[in-house]
C-alpha cells in the first residue's frame, strides 16, 4: 500500500479523505497548510500528494509548484481536491504540474479509482 500526504485547512475534509484512504489500506499523513506540507514532504518521501487549492497562506497550486522543484517529487502524482471548477483554475493547476483535479464533494470510490490509475501498481 502507498504512503499518502493530505493537505487541507479543513479538519473535516482531512478526516474524510484520511478515512477513505486508510480503509483502503494506505498510510496517510495530514497537513493543515502548504508550509506544513512542504516540511513533511522534505522529511519523508510520499507516493502521492492530495491537496486543497484555497488555503490560508500559500495556495495548493503554489504547493504543487514548490513540490515540483524538489528532486524526489518530480514524478510523484499530485492531485488537487477543491471546490473550484473554473477551467482557468484547472489550467493553472495543470501548468503548475498537478497530475489531476477533483472537484469537491468527492465520491470515495471515485477517489480510490483515481488513485489506482495514478499510483504505480504494487
Amino acid at each position, binding site marked *: 500500500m502507498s504512503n499518502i500526504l493530505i493537505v487541507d485547512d*479543513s*479538519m*473535516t*475534509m482531512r*478526516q*474524510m479523505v484520511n*478515512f*477513505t484512504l*486508510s*480503509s483502503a489500506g494506505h498510510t496517510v499523513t495530514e497537513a493543515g497548510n502548504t508550509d506544513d506540507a512542504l516540511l513533511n514532504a522534505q522529511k519523508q518521501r510520499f507516493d502521492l500528494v492530495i491537496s486543497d487549492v*484555497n488555503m490560508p497562506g500559500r495556495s495548493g497550486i503554489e504547493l504543487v509548484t514548490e513540490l515540483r522543484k524538489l528532486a524526489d517529487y518530480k514524478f510523484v502524482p499530485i492531485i488537487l481536491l477543491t*471546490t473550484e471548477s473554473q477551467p482557468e483554475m484547472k489550467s493553472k493547476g495543470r501548468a503548475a504540474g498537478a497530475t489531476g483535479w477533483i472537484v*469537491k*464533494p*468527492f*465520491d*470515495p*470510490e471515485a477517489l480510490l479509482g483515481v488513485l489506482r490509475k495514478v499510483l504505480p501498481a504494487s
Partner: protein
Amino acid sequence: MLDDGKTASPLKTVLLCAAAVLVPWVWGVWAMPPWVALVSLLLSAAAVFLLYGLIKSHGATIRAETVAAQRVELRQVDAAGESETALRQMMGSWLGSAHTAGANLRQASTLLDEVTQQTEAAATSIGKSFQQVMSKTGQQMDDAVRLLKSNSDGAGGSTWLSLPDFIKAYEQQLDAVTGRMMDFSKASEEMSRHQSVVRDHSLAIDEMLDELRNMAARIRKLALDSTVAANRDAGSDTRWFVEIADRIRETSTSAHELTRRMRDGLEKIREVMSGTYEELSKSGDNVRLAAVQAKVDVSQLNIATMEKAREVTGTLEKITDLGKEVRRDINQIIVAMQYQDITQQKLEQIKAPLLAAAMAGLAQCEAQGRAAGVAAGAAAAAAQPARVQDPGKSKTVDVELF
C-alpha cells in the same frame, strides 16, 4: 408701479391723476369757448376724483394680496424649517440605524464564525466516532470471515484450518479411531483363534500326559515284575537288580506325581484361557458394536455440523453484503459531510466582501451625517429602540426598528 410690491401714497396718486386730466385740458383751453372750458374743467375734476377712487380701491386689493402672499411665504418658510428639522431627525435616525446595522453585522459575523467552528467541531467529532465504529466493525467482519478461511501463508509456523477443513480433519480422525478399534476387534478375534489353538495344544498335552502316565504304570509294573523275578532267583547275587527296580519304581512314582501336577496346572491354564477367551470375545463384540455406532453417530454429527457450517457461511455472506451496504452508506455520509466544508468555504468567500461593503456603507453614512451636522448624540439617541405603548397592555414592549 407696484413692481416692488409696495402701494403709492394717496397724494401722489391724486396728483398723477390730475396731471393726466389737466395736461390735455390746459393744452386745448385756448381754443375752446369759456363755457366749454368751464364744463370740461368740472368734468376733468370729476374724472380725477373718479380715477382716484378706482386707483385707491385697486391699491387696497393689491395690498391685501401682498399680505396674503407674505403670509403664504411665511408659512412656506415655516414648513421648510419643519421639513429641515424632520430631515435632520430622519438623518439622525438613519445614522443610528446604520450604527445599529453595523453592530448587528459585526455580531452576525462573529456568530457566523462561531457557528462555522461549532459545525466543524461537530463534524470532526462525528467523523472520529464514525471512523472508530467502522474500524471495529471491519475488524469484527475480518474475524468472522477468518473463521472460514485457513491461514494459507503459514509464515508464523502456526496454521489454522477453516471450519470445513476442520470438520473434514475431525472426520478423518474419527475414521482413524474407528479403524483402530476395528483393528483391535480383529486382533482380539485373532487372539481368540490363538487361544483355541492353545487349547487344542493343551488337550494334546493332556493326551501326552495320559500316555506318560500309562508309561509310568507300565514301568511300575515292570519294576514289580523285576522284583518278583529277583526273589524267585534267590541265592544268586541279584541285589543290584532289586536296587534298580526300586529306583525305577521311585522314578515312576515321581513321574506320576509330576504328571499329576502338570495336569492340574494345565487344567488351571485351560480354565483361565477359557475365561479370557470368553471375556475377550465379548469385549471384541462390544468394541465392534461401539465402533460401528460411533461411526454412525459421527457421520450424523458431521452432517449436522456441515449443515451448520453452511448456515454460518450464509450468515457471513449476509454480513458481508450488509457490510457492503454500510460501506455505500458511509460513502454517502462522507459526501454529505463534505458539504459542511464547502459551505464554510463559500461563507468565507461571501463574508469578507459583504462585511467590507457594509462597513464602507456605514462609514459613508457617518460622513454624510457629520456633513449634515447631525450630532452623534442625537444619532445615538435616534438609534435607541423606540418604546411603543401597547394599547392592549399596560406595560411596554421592546421593538427594534431598522
